[in-house]
């Protein structure tokens, strides 16, 4: 057991992000996120745990587009946590904002309270026409209708590596634990690690002058740290 609990953070380097959607599909594959189809998407009921927002700046021809991957920000002072009547969402010792699907009764209060709107809700029964159900990851609960789900920083992958490492009598090394999005990100825009470990890559990147937090003015203290694009690191 670690002496200090880790503080898991995700660094998103916006200068590297190319908006390629690899993380979106990787997340869906890893976390059994259902596809909802065209109609539900039009209704605003898509379920991606991570989505890439695209912002326009300027006007043609001097126009720029920027990408920003947005997922649950794993806030330290999370607005979603106190409002849940049944403790389905709460803060874990390692700084994760947990969502326990089997406890959720679907009041959607957390979704209303979340300023980032990154909590998604299973509006209808998820469908996996046979044999597509074979793709389901056995490490992650398959959610039914009527409950909230969201990015967990792939806690099943964190646990898997931790158990493996502890069985070998060691602590996981920096970079060994990778959520599915981080693992697949082609331009290495995503970095995951322990902020309580001063030598970890995330600790170093977090001190960059480019770093900022999404809606930082709200004081939610997110566990996702963005690095601004368009600037050099020096």
């Amino acid at each position, binding site marked *: *057991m670690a*002496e200090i*609990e880790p503080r898991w953070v995700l660094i998103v380097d916006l200068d590297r992000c190319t908006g390629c959607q690899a993380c979106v599909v990787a997340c869906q594959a890893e976390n059994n996120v259902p596809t909802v189809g065209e109609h539900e998407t039009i209704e605003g009921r898509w379920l991606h745990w991570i989505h890439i927002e695209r912002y326009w700046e300027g006007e043609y021809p001097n126009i720029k587009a920027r990408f920003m991957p947005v997922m649950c920000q794993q806030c330290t002072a999370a607005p979603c946590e106190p409002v849940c009547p049944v403790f389905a969402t*709460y803060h*874990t*010792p*390692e700084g*994760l904002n*947990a969502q*326990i*699907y*089997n*406890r959720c009764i679907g009041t959607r209060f957390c979704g209303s309270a979340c300023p980032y709107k990154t909590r998604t809700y299973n509006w209808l029964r998820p469908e996996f026409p046979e044999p597509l159900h074979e793709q389901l990851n056995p*490490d*992650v*609960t*398959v959610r039914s209708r009527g409950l909230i789900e969201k990015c*967990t920083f792939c*806690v*099943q992958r964190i*646990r898997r590596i931790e*158990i493996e490492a*502890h*069985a070998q009598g060691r602590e996981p090394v920096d970079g060994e634990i990778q959520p599915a999005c981080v693992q697949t990100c082609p331009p290495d825009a995503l970095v995951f690690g322990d902020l309580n470990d001063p030598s970890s890559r995330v600790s170093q990147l977090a001190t960059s002058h480019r770093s900022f937090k999404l809606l930082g003015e709200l004081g939610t203290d997110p566990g996702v740290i963005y690095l601004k694009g368009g600037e050099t690191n020096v």
Partner: protein
Amino acid sequence: MKRFWLIGLFILVVVGVIAGVILTRVQVYAAPEQPIAYSHQVHVEAGIQCLFCHPSPLKSPLAGIPSVQKCMGCHNVIDTDNPEIQQVASYYESGEPIPWIRVNLQPDFVYFNHQPHLGAGLNCETCHGDVGQMDVTRQTVKMDMGWCLDCHINQSDEKVGRLADCLACHK
């Protein structure tokens, strides 16, 4: 007269609920009907260790159930006249797996992992009971969340945070 009916109805409901609860428990503890009348008692008394047939709890989430090949490893020569053993042999020959019924069952949203439990020094018997004394294997404890928490919450201060955390078992 009316009052009698009311009281009677009330008693019936109460008895029904109690009976239901008891029968529910019975169902939980009842040994399921297995395709082959396998006896743990016979095997344990013959001196076979748990890990011989269930090899992987030290390195995997599951303990594993023995392959048909493993059964036939011994039963090629031992007790081949037994009709149950012949049934095993017929499964082996046809290449069909034996459809065992799971005895200790967790809900789908519970992620139990044998490996850390054995790593923490627990014995098989702690949870599975004295299987060596069972002719027909059955569940000895109701493996509900309260039962899990009995251990998980009584841990040292530095461990309890992690072990009593929901994410320890639910993902």
